[in-house]
């Protein structure tokens, strides 16, 4: 069944404030760079990229009504320039090695269980594998020295959402005010909104099979 997630902020585009007093030049530079990120692998190999892209689609399925956020490309760039948090937690390797190792191991699990690469599996099967990783139920030696569960918790569920919610499209979707310097905000009370904030038009909702009506 087709399901569509409908944002409560249908008419809001945070980028409309780009040239306003809510954005300073440093912000404009940073966001321009993010919006023009090359959508090709530079850190990952082609094969790793395919697996990663498939994982991203399951962790954060994208909106039908807005251009997709290039999650894999943003992560690729982050790892390439080492714009990470820097530390590692035993037994996980540093982020770059953890990602290369984890994507390879996930693909090996897919091959071992289903005889096919992760990225060609049907979405529900991919979800099943990811759920097993989250639940600590994948044990191929290829995960060593980490575990599937640690990789899922500490890398997949940390980095992929961080990339998605670093993108202005996601800010529009959740009604976040976005960059706010130097203007800031004036109306701080409950249920009050500055004119430059998002208007909520409905509650967030899942529309079941929207094309059938």
């Amino acid at each position, binding site marked *: 069944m087709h399901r569509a997630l409908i944002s409560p902020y249908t008419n809001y585009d945070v980028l409309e404030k780009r040239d306003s007093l809510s954005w300073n030049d440093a*912000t404009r530079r940073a966001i321009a760079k993010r919006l023009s990120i090359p959508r090709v692998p530079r850190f990952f190999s082609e094969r790793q990229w395919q697996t990663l892209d498939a994982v991203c689609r399951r962790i954060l399925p994208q909106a039908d009504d807005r251009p997709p956020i290039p999650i894999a490309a943003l992560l690729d760039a982050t790892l390439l320039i080492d714009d990470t*948090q820097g*530390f*590692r937690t035993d037994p996980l390797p540093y982020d770059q090695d953890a990602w290369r190792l984890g994507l390879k191991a996930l693909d090996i699990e897919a091959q071992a269980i289903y005889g096919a690469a992760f990225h060609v599996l049907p979405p529900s099967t991919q979800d099943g594998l990811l759920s097993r990783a989250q639940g600590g139920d994948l044990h191929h030696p290829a995960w060593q020295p980490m575990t599937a569960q640690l990789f899922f918790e500490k890398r997949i569920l940390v980095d992929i959402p961080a990339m998605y*919610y670093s993108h202005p499209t996601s800010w529009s979707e959740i009604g976040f005010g976005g960059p706010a310097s*130097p203007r800031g905000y004036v109306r*701080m009370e409950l249920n009050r909104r500055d004119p430059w*904030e998002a208007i909520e038009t409905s509650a*967030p909702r899942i529309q079941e099979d929207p094309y059938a009506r």
Partner: protein
Amino acid sequence: MPVDFDSRPRAVAGRAPDVFDPKGGFVPMRSYDEDEAVDFVIVGTGAGGGTLAARLAELGFSVVAFDAGPFFRPLLDFASDETAQNSLYWTDKRVCDGENPIKMGGNNSGKAVGGSTVHFAMVSLRFRPEWFKSRSALGYGADWPLDWREMWHYYTVAERALAIAGPVHYPWGPKRPRYPYRAHEINAAGRLLAQGCEALGYRWAETPLATVSAPRGKSPPCVYRGFCRFGCSTNAKQSALTVWIPRALKAGAEIRDLAMVGRIEVDDQGLARGVHYVREGKWRFQRARHVVISAYAIETPRLLLNSATDRFPQGLANSSGLVGRNLMTQSNQAAWGRMEDQVRWYKGPPSLTITEHWNYEDRGKDFFGGYCWMGQGPMPIEWVSVQTGARGLWGERLRTEMMDYNHQIGVKMVGEMLPDEANRVTLDSDTDQYGLPIPRITYRWGDNDKRLIKHALDQMMMSLDSVGATKLFRQEDDTNHLAGTARMGFTPETSVVDADCRSWDIPNLWICDGSVFPTTGGVNPALTIQAIALRTADRIKALAIRGEL
């Protein structure tokens, strides 16, 4: 370190960035020769080192202060963005282990002139007086060699220096003067915290904050943009970068940015004679009569351990074996829920209201120590990390929950964790980009810590429930500030430094930052670190006058 930022030092050739100049100008800076033994070299320019650099220079000492990070110009460099501001944090290689490994990076570290005060949440609280005698008065932890009444004086000095905005009457603890600036307007998230406290019968207050509520010098009043923890791009924040560093420069201190100190050199008499540091890819040496380490609870012990010699094989100032031990973080769990109303918690400083009820109430506890809780306003990436970290959400469910962003509320604790010698910083065999052994950070929550956390989570859930929040959940696994690893104390056998932050083993080696805390209390540490630094500067002057330096 991300490549975005121009990685050449800015404080060179007799001038340093003018942080208040929107055009990128400079202020004059005194420069010292490396062969000239300056009175004080200070390693680190945050809450401890920045404060000390200003005060020592103002008291007439020659000072060179080093920071491994860049000298930012907030008005020009700072974006309103969670990701782009990653350059403020200490993101060099580190390894964490133990039963409850600490999350490092942006969580609790800074790598910039001004240290982590550049991105701290500005919460400026005093310790409860009894905490300075927690062993003898409350039965846990260790006593401080400091008297609370003296600290009360230095808290007042620090609050004035930082123009703290806070309430006229603070409802807990002994009398204190009114805060220098009026309290900030309370946002919706802060109001809901207050309502919750009133329902439970607890007092609450506007949180004393180091961001100005009215113009002050070249700082404009806070505009409530909400990105405080990613650097203040308007200079309303009263950080070490905007308060102490300009004072230090004016008083004749030299600041060396992008200068990583890797080793303290000790001479044949067992005295410190200067520091080896890397700047622009070259190892250099600065002579000094005294060396102060203000590099915080990870880098301070790391530098002491990395400076080991034949004479001090266990590292410097470590005859007690306590360097690196008794590392403390603070419990930072939270309760979250959803309101029918629109809260829009991204507006304003994140923690505009607070309750310190359980810092001052000892009855009804099955644990030692205390905690406070404050209102919250996480930005989207931090918020999604709560949804994935605490609830394990992903897929369509995650995106749907995130669409409730503007209806969300939360309260988050700052809780006291007890010192434990097994929680510690050691050296790992791996090395960083400077070729220096990296720190290994080992941490485990004790039974007392777990009881305190459970108590706090139950209380915070009740407070959200009482304001009509629904879909409540607990964030069980988070910690924040650091302390310990070079504790102050009464004897050389049981501590690393004395009450004046002077090391017992090497009389011209000092440590002045959160590392010296014997216990960590249930409040954010920044104001206490600054109060200690103010006291240390006065003590150094007094000792100099008596010829005991």
